[in-house]
Structures are given as C-alpha cells and as structure tokens.
C-alpha cells in the first residue's frame, strides 16, 4: 500500500546552525491518525514545514501519495495537504469570516456557484456558521482558530496537518474541534490522513500512533497505550503523560488497562472498601 507521506533520510539545518534532522525517517500510512509530539524546539513544527515545502531540506526525500516533493510537484502536493498553524492571526486575509474561507476555494478555482454551500458546511463543522458575516479581527483567538480550521476543511484535503492547532482554544472549543476531527475521520475513514503536532498528551492519546521527536531524532514511535507507560522518559523529554497515568503513579500502581480517567475511576470504584 502506498503511504500517505514517506520521509526518507531527511537532513535539514537552519542557516548557520547544526543539522536539526539527520537521516530522519518516518512514514504515515494512508488513513492513519498520527500524533507527532515533542518539546518546544524539538523540530516537530519544522518537520511539518518540510513536508509542505515551506522549507527546503538539504538531503533526503519526501513523498506524498507516491509523488516526490519537488518544485514541480509542490502545488499539486499542497492541494492534497491542508495545514492549520498555531497562530490563527497569521492566516487571515478575508474581510469577513466567509470571505476568508472563500479565499482558499478561489485559489483552487472552485466555481463561485458552489462556494456558499461549501463555506457554510465548513463553518458549521467548526461551530462558526453564525459568524459568517463577522470581521475576523472581532473574533477571539479560539474563534479565529476554528475559522482557520474551516478554511482547510473547505478544501477537502487528503491529509490535514494540525500544528498545535488547539493550543489557543477554550476547553469547549477544543473538545468541539477534536470531536469534529473524530467525526471527519469516521466519515472519510481512509480517505483522510491526520497528522497532529502537539504536546497535549490527552490529544496524542486519540491518535493511532505517536511519534516522539527530540532534537530532530525519532525517540519513540508506537501506540499511545505503550508510550504512556514511559512517564519518566517522557518527563525527561520535557513532556507529560495523561492524568490517569500520573494518578496511578501517585497511587503506587502502573496499569496500561486504565489509560483514561473514566477507566481508572471505574476500576477504583470496584476496589472501594
């Protein structure tokens, strides 16, 4: 099976700095939900920019759905890979929220007659339909980020990369966005590949697989269930583990069957004296 994204022997250094990535390899299967986690400065956001051709790597190869990333293939690849950045303020161009979502569609030469329905649907998916006529600068940070997400969703990309996209959302907004992602994933199944760059471990726990990056090296690449047993290693990397695992440690136990607070609470209730 073709991978959605294959990174082979990637080497990249910021100007006048030591190589951040050296012979870095990582692949993402079609339809997979991958979380890339690492502390600030670990290289995880740089990796996303390399995949999108926003930065040029020095050596190696990036392949997106079998297509090798190059100057020629760049625009074709960007049509398949949508990205939501951390800071929504850098992503706004439209005078209204709806205009902003329309901008991406216009860039892809979508017939204007199809636009209103697509815009409305995308805004609905992020709970911002009522804000279609608002000026983006009047929105709060969380609301802006949801509009940025809608702009990407409207283009129906095969891969969505979210770079700390929920960091600024309030709990409800964050849950709504994560719920959206789950629904989209359930609906599109293997037609949608998700790559979520984060250091929120509750978020990482939603993924099929978690890649932990530290100073450009792939330190762990495994399922959340096994990764979260490595609390001390994760802390040493500047990361955390889900609360259920923290509490287990305080209780003097360590059981991978109870990764979520719900599971742990249910189990503890059966042991109540």
């Amino acid at each position, binding site marked *: 099976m073709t991978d959605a994204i294959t990174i082979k022997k990637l080497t990249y250094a910021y100007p006048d700095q030591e190589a951040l990535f050296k012979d870095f390899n990582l692949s993402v299967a079609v339809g997979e939900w991958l979380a890339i986690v690492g502390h600030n400065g670990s290289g995880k956001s740089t990796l996303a920019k390399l995949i999108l051709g926003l930065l040029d790597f020095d050596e190696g190869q990036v392949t997106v759905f079998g297509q090798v990333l190059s100057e020629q293939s760049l625009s074709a690849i960007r049509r398949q890979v949508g990205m939501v950045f*951390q800071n929504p303020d850098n992503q706004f161009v439209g005078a209204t929220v709806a205009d902003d979502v329309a901008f991406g569609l216009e860039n892809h030469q979508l017939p204007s007659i199809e636009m209103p329905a697509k815009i409305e649907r995308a805004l609905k998916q992020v709970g911002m339909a009522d804000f279609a006529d608002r000026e983006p600068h009047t929105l709060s*940070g*969380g609301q802006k980020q949801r509009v940025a997400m809608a702009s990407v969703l409207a283009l129906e990309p095969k891969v969505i990369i979210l770079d700390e996209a929920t960091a600024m959302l309030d*709990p*409800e907004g964050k849950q709504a966005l994560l719920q959206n992602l789950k629904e989209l994933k359930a609906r599109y199944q293997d037609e949608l590949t998700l790559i979520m760059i984060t250091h929120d471990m509750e978020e990482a726990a939603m993924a099929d697989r978690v890649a932990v990056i530290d100073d450009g090296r792939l330190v762990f690449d495994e399922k959340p269930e096994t990764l979260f047993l490595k609390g001390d290693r994760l802390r040493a990397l500047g990361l955390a583990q889900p*609360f259920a695992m923290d509490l287990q440690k*305080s*209780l003097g136990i360590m059981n991978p069957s109870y990764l979520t607070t719900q599971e742990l*609470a249910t189990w503890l209730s059966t042991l*109540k004296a």
Partner: protein
Amino acid sequence: MVINIEGVDFAYGTGKQEVPVLKDIQLTIPENQITAIIGQTGSGKSTLVQQLNALLKPTAGQVQIGQHLVTSQTKEKQLTAIRAEVGMVFQFPEAQLFAPTVIEDVMYGPLNFGAEPKDARAAAEKALTQVGLDATFYDQSPFNLSGGQMRRVALAGVLAMDPQTMVFDEPAAGLDPAGQEELLQLLKDLRAAGKTIVLISHQMEQVLALADRVVVMNDGQVAADETVTALFERPQSWFEAQHLDLPETVAFQKQLAAAGFIFDHLAKTADDLAEQINDQIDWPKGNAEQKNGALTSQSAQPTSDKGGFRHE
C-alpha cells in the same frame, strides 16, 4: 496597588454597530495575589483585562488603578503613567518582538519609559535572568530562537519595566509541559517578590496550582469571584452551565465522590488525591500482578498520617 472596577460597561463600536462586551462589572483585584480570570471564549476576559491598564477605557463606569482614575473621558496622555505600573503580556507575545537583538528588545520598554541606557541594560539583564536566558542570548536575533525562547524574551520585555501589577493573557499557551512548569514557577516567584498578578487561562490545572482567587466571566458579567478552593468545591453542574472544564484532579475527585468515596478536602495535586483514595481502598494482595499483568511502579504505597478524614 489595588485595582477597583466600579460599574464598568464596555462596548465595541457605536450606534447600530455597538457590540456590548462588559456589563456592569464590579471587581477588586487584590494586591500581591494571583487572580485568575476564566470563562469560555467570548465571555469578555481579554476585554476585561485591557481595562486594568487602560488599554481600553470604559464606556460607562470607572476603573481606579492605584492613584489613577480612568473613565470614558480620561485623556490618552494621562494613561502613560498607568502603563508603567501595570504591565501587560498578551497572547503570543513573541509576535511583538521586533529588535535586532534580544537585549535591545528587552531594553526597549525601560528606555521608552525614560530609563538611562545603563539602567535599562541592567533591568534587561535581570529580567532575562529571571526567565532563564543567560548572556549567550543577549546578542542573538530573537527571530532565530525557538518558540519557547521567544516567549521568554517577550516576558522579559515586560519584567524589565518592573511594573507593580502584571497581567498575563494565556502565558503558557503553546509551551510544552516543561516550559509551562517553568512559567508557573516564574509567576509564583513574582508573587513572592510582592507583585500583583492577573492571569487569563483556559488551563484549569494552572488555575488550581497557582491562583489565590478566581474570577469567572460569563457573557460579559462576573459569574463568580472567590477563592480557588471555594470555586472548585462548587458542584460539577455549575461548571457545565458555565461551559468550563474542571482541573483533572478535581474532576476525578468529584467522579469518585459520586461513586461513594468521601473526601475531607479538595485535592490540588495527584499525590494529595492518591493519598485520600488509598485510605478508602482495600488493595487486593499482590494487586498489581492480578490486574491484567500490571507492573508495580517503584514508589511505595503512600501512607496517610493525615487526621480528620476516614470513611469508616
């Protein structure tokens, strides 16, 4: 320096375009405490804190900031003195970095408020030390730093002005867990040094760990203004109505309480909660081995020497 918000209304725009954001706010920000301001997106938190250093003037009512009184009629040039006393760190403050070097960026504030270059330099160095950036960073371009380092430079820019009150809007957003931990420590250190801290945060774990008082905003009004313990002792249904999350420790404690566990106090840490849980559990002998091949961790079962709480 106490800040008193008295009967403040605030609206963006005028006439037909008017969007009311704050409605009849009565609030006192106590000195030398950490006051957290929480509330769902759009509840008016950011607008509220901009009243604290007169970045926005009230549409009606008044704000007493130390000796300064701000109303809708206050002239712009009267506000400079307030800005020196109340420092503001916005969301993603690193977006406002501009100088060619780190040290120049941090010196800009003190220079702008009239400090001598030598004093501005000393203030900048002290502030950079406070945020954990040593001399090797002084002459680097802030734009070549990592996100977390840029955040620290931006924080130092406000610290260097040494304001008595500091307002932070989501200061830890986007920082990794280790960076968040350092930031929490910095805010505690500032409180210990006598500063008044106002903190907007969506992260309830931070609020629980840091805040002395919490102000809950809902639809432009104050829905609660009380100690952090009093707030989180409210029933879960109240938080649901406010569209607020609970800190995980608190949520877990409430969940177990609903299942019949009895707790004598609100746990602020996982260790504290674990201790109260362990008192009420009959751990099966060799429990770890019996439970789906679980591994026992190194730490021993915590033993409680706390009086006052037993479920028997």
